[in-house]
């Protein structure tokens, strides 16, 4: 049946990304000025008039069919050689969440992957159903400064957050600054030097695991990103595992 989605203008990118994920980038979205929450009901009601014609149009006029967006798959790109220049470039490309990153070169990514099948699909990540292949996870791990020894833990963390009962979609799309906490149990925690015991949440020297899992978790929210976090959180940097 014909449907129109209403939202506030602050959420346009999320609305577009989500409708595109479902194969309906041409779904009608009518926007009112942000915010709706936290305002008096009369104020919210008064926003209806301005979008009435747009909503009616969305229910009664077939939109032009959109152009299909082909997926590129893993892509090699040229980056600056010098490490400091790479850092500046990576920030400009929005490859960094603000923390320093290391170049995900072919050699470093291949080293992290070892003999594992690069195209193995580990999980599908919300909100855009980005495919978390081992290769994509390894690229993010390389950016975060992780090594091959960290890959099993990062993969386990990705699998965990992708479980339906975890409801990753809610965490990815909310304006709340919440973020998953990865707790690593067993001998591998000590072997990798993951902080534990007293001061477990304090300084630890192996933040690469969390950083890599975090990066990979966020799938293709680059446009939506963390701009919507009202206050944000230092734990919630913007990671990378794009489905586009």
């Amino acid at each position, binding site marked *: 049946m014909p449907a129109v989605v*209403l939202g506030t203008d602050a959420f346009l990118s999320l609305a577009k990304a989500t409708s595109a994920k479902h194969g309906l980038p041409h779904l009608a979205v009518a926007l009112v000025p942000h915010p709706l929450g936290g305002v008096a009901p009369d104020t919210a009601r008064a926003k*209806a008039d301005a979008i009435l014609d747009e909503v009616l149009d969305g229910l009664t006029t077939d939109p032009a069919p959109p152009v299909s967006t082909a*997926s590129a798959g893993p892509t090699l790109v040229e980056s600056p050689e010098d490490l400091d220049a790479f850092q500046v470039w990576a920030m400009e490309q929005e490859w960094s969440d603000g923390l320093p990153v290391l170049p995900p070169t072919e050699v470093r990514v291949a080293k992290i992957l070892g003999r594992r099948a690069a195209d193995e699909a580990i999980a599908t990540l919300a909100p*855009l*159903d980005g495919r978390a292949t081992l290769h994509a996870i390894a690229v993010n791990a390389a950016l975060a400064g992780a090594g091959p020894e960290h890959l099993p833990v990062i993969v386990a963390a990705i699998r965990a957050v992708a479980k339906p009962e975890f409801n990753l979609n809610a965490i990815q799309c909310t304006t709340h600054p919440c973020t998953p906490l990865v707790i690593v149990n067993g001998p591998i925690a000590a072997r990798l030097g993951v902080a534990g015991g007293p001061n477990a949440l304090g300084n630890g020297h192996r933040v690469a695991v969390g950083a890599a899992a975090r990066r990979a978790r966020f799938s293709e929210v680059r446009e939506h990103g963390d701009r919507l976090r009202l206050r944000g959180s230092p734990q919630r940097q913007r990671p990378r595992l*794009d489905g586009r």
Partner: protein
Amino acid sequence: MNVWSPFPGGGRAQIGRLAPRKPSLAGLTIGVLDNSKPNAGVLLHRVAELLAQKTGAAGVRGWRKPGASRPAEMIDDIAKSAHVVLTGSAD
């Protein structure tokens, strides 16, 4: 130097088809699916009421999800009971 992009692409859904739009809303039932975000129901119902007045729609029927991130389990009921639907929102 060459580096792998962390934006590899893939996974994008095929373009689907939207339901054909209605020539007019006259005599039709406008459904409202409130996602329970603050004031979502207020705005959605107001738009639906104004639309009904403007177009001569038969009426408005509403449903409410228990939480914004929860699936719309009532979707079959909506499809059976309404001709068009308004939903959202982000607050």
